[in-house]
């Protein structure tokens, strides 16, 4: 039997003058979607998991590791969390080539630590021909593929994606969604996926956390949450 600890467990409370985030959920699934309209607190939750933001109170664990626990005064800084983050607009380093961007991640996360082989990732994401180029010369879809590769090569325990497709046209979106499925299947890296689009949730998510106005309003499979 595997240990009973869930892959991801989030309990967080934070108050702003005009908004309160108060959520608690768990997931064991390969792709968990945080789904809801903009302003529902999805990205804030991702930032809390990544350690970029600290909740007023709460507890966050990933694969049995306590990353944030305000009661026990535990707060692991972002660079020690081993959490991959794929940003909406890729955020590749403009002064480095594609290869250097990817190696950046590898350098800080030695391969022994459960790392994925660089060649396999480059192959799967089809970026072999781009390695010598600079981010400014890449198209939107290419940039996202590089961002995925970079996040994967940081040997993450979990991969967070913040609306990774929102800047792409439909053809590119389908392509990247296919790649996300391959990442799930070939590299077995669990993914937390933030989106406000129903089609992405239906295609990708094995568990959906539906959010509205800073609260969890529904959880379950895509069919349960969205209807057939």
């Amino acid at each position, binding site marked *: 039997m595997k240990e009973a600890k869930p892959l991801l467990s989030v309990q967080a409370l934070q108050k702003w003058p005009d908004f309160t985030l108060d959520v608690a959920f768990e997931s064991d699934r390969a792709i968990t979607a945080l789904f809801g309209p903009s302003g529902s607190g999805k990205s804030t939750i991702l930032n809390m998991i*990544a*350690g*970029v933001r600290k909740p007023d109170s709460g507890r966050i664990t990933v694969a049995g590791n306590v990353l944030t626990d305000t009661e026990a005064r535990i707060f692991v*800084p*972002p*660079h*020690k*969390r*081993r*959490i*991959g*983050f794929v*940003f909406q*607009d890729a*955020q590749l*380093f*403009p*002064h480095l080539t594609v290869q250097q961007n990817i190696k*950046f*991640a590898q350098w*800080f*996360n030695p391969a022994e630590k459960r790392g994925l082989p660089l060649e396999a990732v480059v192959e799967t994401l089809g970026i072999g021909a781009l390695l010598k180029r*600079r*981010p*400014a*010369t890449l198209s939107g879809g290419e940039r996202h593929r590089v961002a995925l590769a*970079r*996040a994967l090569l*940081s040997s993450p325990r979990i991969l967070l994606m913040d609306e990774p497709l929102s800047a792409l046209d439909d053809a590119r979106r389908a392509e990247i969604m296919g790649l996300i499925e391959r990442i799930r299947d070939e590299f077995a890296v669990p993914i937390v996926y933030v989106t406000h689009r129903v089609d992405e949730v239906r295609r990708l998510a094995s568990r959906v956390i539906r959010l509205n106005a800073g609260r969890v309003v529904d959880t379950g499979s895509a069919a349960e949450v969205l209807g057939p």
Partner: protein
Amino acid sequence: MFGFSPDEWMAIELSLRVATVGTLAGLPVALVAAYALARWRFPGKIILDGLLHLPLVLPPVVTGYFLLLTFGKQGAVGKAIYDLFGITFSFRWTGAALACGVMGFPLMLRAIRLSFEAIDRRLEKAAGTLGANPYWTFLLVTLPLALPGVLVGVILCFAKALGEFGATITFVSNIPGETQTIPSAIYTYTQVPGGESQALRLSMVSIAIAMVALIVSEVLNRRIQKRIAVFE
């Protein structure tokens, strides 16, 4: 060469040395101060900001006088540095370098700070999630992206240091071969009968050095921009 007298050569060599040392010594301080002002919030930030920019707006004579009071033989800091490192500032070229560095510092600080502020913080956040601690993030992401601004700051400081006159002459006087930089030499030549041609020649040298510095900075800047390509 060019018919310069030994005194003139000394002034030219000294000016270059003083400006280079003053600028390079100030650079690490400017990097730290610019980063602190651009990124950190701390009590007294406005006051620190004002103090660091003070040499820009004070009469240079006042700055020179305060340097004399603090870094002179009897000054608290000057004494401490002499005891610790054996370096004297008063009436030495090191003092001229200090005066020039202090006068050019605000220009360097300002350029570097602006370039730090222009960097997309999300790139630093990305570096963090990839496992880079804050120091590596600064070295590998922040600093390279700020490089064009740092370069502009260095050139501005160097140019200002080359032209510095008031603070230098107040702090370390006007000693040929030791503290007589190009501006001090020009001043001296304009004060003696028959010095006009020498004053004019050194003025032309000043212009030439300043032009070369500006052109070098522009060329380097273009190269860096090409390497970094377009920011998005």
